[in-house]
């Protein structure tokens, strides 16, 4: 008998996310973001969240929608431009932000998914990122000790998935989704196409189902493009 992770929709998937929890959200810019779950979080109105995500969306899409509703207490990200509401809340002191190098963000997620309590990275050595952190020299080079993230939920978006939780991504929408999927204490995956076990090639699975706790087929994906750029 097969392990079945399917839930009906985003509302059911996020039903037990509570005020004050820490949530990882996959995506890079607006590419590969869990649109359905973000909409459900906005509808549910959960607040005081700490969000770990590479970016904070734009004013009217992605995590920007949660910022509009003042649902985010703290943002951990590598880049938060392109968002006027974010800037307003930050300057007014409503929002706390922790900016970390993009690779450090990726590795701190990966560490959680690999059961590693911490990792070493050279990123940030000699900069303000290193303040208060342990520096260690290996073979003549300095590294920062960075700890694994500890998130209550990870919410990711894949291209295809099966009901056992196996995920396949498309293009550059893989980005942080794989490591976050592996890192959440509870991981929710929304997919564009949900299939039966056996329909996905085992050799092409990007995230094995063991990491996924809930999965559903999303709907009405807008997949907004932030900077459409065309060859001249």
């Amino acid at each position, binding site marked *: 008998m097969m392990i079945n992770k399917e839930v009906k929709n985003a509302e059911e998937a996020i039903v037990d996310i509570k005020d004050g929890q820490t949530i990882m959200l996959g995506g890079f810019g607006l590419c590969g973001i869990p649109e359905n779950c973000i909409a459900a979080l906005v509808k549910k109105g959960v607040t005081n969240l700490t969000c770990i995500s590479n970016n904070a969306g734009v004013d009217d899409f992605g995590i920007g929608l949660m910022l509009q509703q003042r649902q985010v207490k703290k943002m951990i990200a*590598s*880049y938060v431009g392109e968002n006027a509401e974010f800037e307003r809340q930050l300057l007014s002191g409503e929002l706390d932000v922790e900016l970390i*190098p993009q*690779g*450090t963000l990726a590795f701190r997620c990966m560490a959680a998914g690999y059961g590693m309590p911490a990792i070493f990275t050279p990123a940030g050595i000699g900069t303000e990122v290193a303040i208060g952190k342990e520096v260690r020299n290996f073979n003549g080079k300095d590294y920062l000790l960075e700890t694994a993230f500890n998130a209550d939920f990870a919410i990711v978006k894949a291209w295809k998935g099966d009901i056992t939780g196996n995920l396949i*991504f498309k293009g550059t929408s893989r980005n942080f989704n794989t*490591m976050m999927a592996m890192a959440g204490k509870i991981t929710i995956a929304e997919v564009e196409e949900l299939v039966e076990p056996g329909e996905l090639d085992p050799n092409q699975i990007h995230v094995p189902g063991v990491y996924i706790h809930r999965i559903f087929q999303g709907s009405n994906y807008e997949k907004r*493009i932030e900077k*459409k750029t*065309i060859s001249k």
Partner: protein
Amino acid sequence: MLDKEAIAKRIAKEIQHNSYVNLGIGIPTLVANYIPKNIAVCFQSENGLLGMGPFPTEAEVDADLINAGKQTITMLPGASLFDSAMSFGMIHAQKIDLTILGAMEVSENGDIANWKIPGKMVKGMGGAMDLVASAKNIIVAMQHVNKDGESKLLPNCTLPLTGIRCVKKIVTELAVLAVLPEGGFKLLERAPGVSVDTIKKATLGKLIIEGEIPEMAFD
């Protein structure tokens, strides 16, 4: 004085055959347009792509395929996709031969500042701190002076640092300079029509001038 396109064109000459290159946002992105046909090069986009091609046609646009600047792009034959952990893993393992990026300031010992201006909204360092911490070779594309005419090639950076002792070469609107391991900007080439004296006045950090300084050649 060089315009942005000319700076990009000059930097393109630095790209070695059979190399993997990461291009930052701005002028560095333009470098891809000037790679000679006989040079094999593969561009990495740190959001998870090797083998980045040109911007798409209207028909090719795919929301699931963007570069690290969030622009829509295409893939060349031989491209590969991966997640951000592997992407920064290959950066830190020094599999990327060359990083080209912009800077607000560079110091004479190779420190770089390009992510934060105190008092202004801080958008974040993105992948820049990772790239400068690990790249085997870093070339900076930047303006030699700010809009008030003040040098951005300094004894020490005044802005918060992105990385230390990492910049190897600088191409500005005025000159090509190497950052020496022992410190100092060594003047290698002048922009067409720019005098050594102009470069001297525009460089606050230690400038090293040895012998005749040639004008840049572009091909």
